[in-house]
């Protein structure tokens, strides 16, 4: 997994000044949080469903090996094949081998974050296989050679004009010579271009929203219908997904389906929810002859039994991103990881390392909004805090921070020295303020980051505790 958060501060500084990104993020945040709130208000059982969803996933994780084996047995019984991949490399190799078996030259893909995580498309392309993303947002960013900036709205950072420019540049060679200005026309053009791809593909690759252990069924949720075409037309269908996606029964899947669309975008249910069980049956009019499921671990099992296990409940709904003030300030690309926002801040270091992803769990005020909206009640702030502990224990956070905190703790547990030291500190600040001004507009060292954008109220010369003592 390609992760690098080291440039987070620079990238976020540029991002907050990007006016078009600001507009996109404003639309995303305001639109989706309002829609989710309406959907939640409209379903009395919403919070009860969240509790149940949490409990179902906890049960699955506690018995994960057994549920995966049950799922595998059902897929096999239906005539499909399950492949297990311990690493991203194993997953890429397994998928490439299936594509080669199918003599694949072109592959259509529906949206899947796991395929982003394992960097599947570049791998297929490097081996001479053309892979076409069919989700509109994914298609747009594929043309632009960008990474998704949001787990369900991958091109949310772009505006209509940028999409128009991209289509004009790439579709000209296909005979589309017009620069389109209407959103509907852009959608229509992509529909035409991609229809041929669907009909001509040798292999269809999809992700999975849920895997149903009861029957070996793969559940896919989309609004566009691209997953249905991806998985019905080609002769081979490959499902690529994480080991944590399994749920016991159809009834359990129903609970998650009732939560997913509402949490993601305030939709009662997405337009299309597909339940796919094995390859085409004898005599079926369409459907793949070969059905493969690639179960990807890639660091997930390492999180079991740790303070990060709850993260494996995540259903990738994106509610935590859509409500996160940090994500909405910087967009997805600044994070340097395909998983971003609060869920990415916890998951990314789990799948890669805290060294590579250090900024992600640090860039949070712990406002708690993510946990408030998470449909499976993942305690995201608590786990970001746990990553900060790990980072500090491994001495990977800035040394000044570690010493500063240690010094503060030492003072706070030695009250007399604390009084002395804080009085000295306040004295320095008051000298900078020249005694009388009630606000400081400059402060030294790191505190200068405060006064760069705002003033600091000048502290009183004598602390509350000291004044109170004097009065007694």
């Amino acid at each position, binding site marked *: 997994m390609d992760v690098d958060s080291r440039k987070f501060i620079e990238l976020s500084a540029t991002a907050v000044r990007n006016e078009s990104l600001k507009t996109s993020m404003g639309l995303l945040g305001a639109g989706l949080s309002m829609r989710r709130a309406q959907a939640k208000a409209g379903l009395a059982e919403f919070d009860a469903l969240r509790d149940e969803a949490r409990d179902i996933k906890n049960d699955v994780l506690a018995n994960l090996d057994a549920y995966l084996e049950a799922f595998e047995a059902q897929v096999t019984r239906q005539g499909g094949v399950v492949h297990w991949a311990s690493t991203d490399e194993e997953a890429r190799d397994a998928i490439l081998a299936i594509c080669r078996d199918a003599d694949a030259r072109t592959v259509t893909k529906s949206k899947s974050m796991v395929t982003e995580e394992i960097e599947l498309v570049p791998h297929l392309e490097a081996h001479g296989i053309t892979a076409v993303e069919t989700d509109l947002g994914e298609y747009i960013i594929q043309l632009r050679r960008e990474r998704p900036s949001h787990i369900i709205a991958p091109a949310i950072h772009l505006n209509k004009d940028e999409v128009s420019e991209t289509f004009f540049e790439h579709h000209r060679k296909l005979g589309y010579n017009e620069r389109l200005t209407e959103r509907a026309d852009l959608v229509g053009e992509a529909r035409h271009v991609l229809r041929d791809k669907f009909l001509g593909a040798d292999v269809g690759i999809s992700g999975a929203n849920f895997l149903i252990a009861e029957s070996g069924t793969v559940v896919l949720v989309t609004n566009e219908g691209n997953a249905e075409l991806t998985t019905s037309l080609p002769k081979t269908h490959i499902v690529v997904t994480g080991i944590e996606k399994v749920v016991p029964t159809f009834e359990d899947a129903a609970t998650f389906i009732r939560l997913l669309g509402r949490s993601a975008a305030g939709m009662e249910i997405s337009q299309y929810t597909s339940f796919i069980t094995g390859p085409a049956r004898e005599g079926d009019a369409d459907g793949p002859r070969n059905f493969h499921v690639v179960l990807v671990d890639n660091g997930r099992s390492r999180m079991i039994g740790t303070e990060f296990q709850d993260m494996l409940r995540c259903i990738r709904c994106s509610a935590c991103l859509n409500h996160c003030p940090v994500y909405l300030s910087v967009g997805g690309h600044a994070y340097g990881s395909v998983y971003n926002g609060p869920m990415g801040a916890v998951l990314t270091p789990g799948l890669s390392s805290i060294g590579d992803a250090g900024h992600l769990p640090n860039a949070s005020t712990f406002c708690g909004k993510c946990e408030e909206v998470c449909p499976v009640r993942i305690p995201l702030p608590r786990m970001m805090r746990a990553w900060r502990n790990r980072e500090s224990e491994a001495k990977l956070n800035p040394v000044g921070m570690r010493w500063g905190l240690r010094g503060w703790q030492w003072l706070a547990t030695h009250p007399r020295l604390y009084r002395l030291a804080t009085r000295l500190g306040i004295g320095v600040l008051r000298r900078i303020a020249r005694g009388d001004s009630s606000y400081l507009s400059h402060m030294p060292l790191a505190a200068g*980051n405060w006064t760069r954008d705002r003033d600091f109220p000048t502290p009183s010369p004598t602390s509350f505790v000291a004044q109170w003592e004097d009065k007694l």
Partner: protein
Amino acid sequence: MSEEKPRRREVALFATCLVDLVRPDIGFDVARLVLDAGFKVVVPPLQTCCGQPNYNGGDKSGAMAMARRNIDLLMPYEYVVVPSGSCGGMIAHHYPELLSGDTVYAGRARRLAERVYELSRFLVDVADYQPSRRLEGTVTYHDACAGLRELGIKSGPRTLLERAGAQVVESGQAEACCGFGGTFCIKYPDISNAMLERKVADIEATGAATVVAGELGCLMNIEGKLHRTGRPIAARHFAQLLAPEQKS
């Protein structure tokens, strides 16, 4: 309840490091409020910081040391009142979690948690306080994150302000984070500033003359921005508005 009370019940005021060091006047406002509500106020003189910077900064063992010390300091009191949702949440929620494996302190942390009150919660739920102060005009309330989401502080401060006669106008994003986040605002100044700009614009849009909150960190952040950008809006802790006038 019919029994005579020979003396007022005692409340320990844990001022929090920010009030103590930056805005001592708020400490006195809190003390006057608690007194006016019929309680006796004690200020444990050895108090320092609740440990949040360490807890949130990856220094778990430092935070545990601070938690143990504060538990020792505050255990003797019947009530502990904290004029901050985040410090209140730290003591009430995070101390028991931090020390859950500590044979001596786990139980003490839980017992202390039952006696710790964020100021508005104490005034409304315990004291059923009727402010003697009269307020006029409109204010808007900023729901500081930890108070709101860890302690469920939402209606309490509004109730008190309204009981005192203030008109509370809601902003569109009262529950949005202001971008303070402790060391966050120093570590990620650009993001913090972007959040703060949205916050002050939201406050300004209400037309209220004063923004009120129960968290000094947020208030310093918001006030600093209001002042820097020349917006004529005051930022106040609700204790500052509600405390009875000082008798000289």
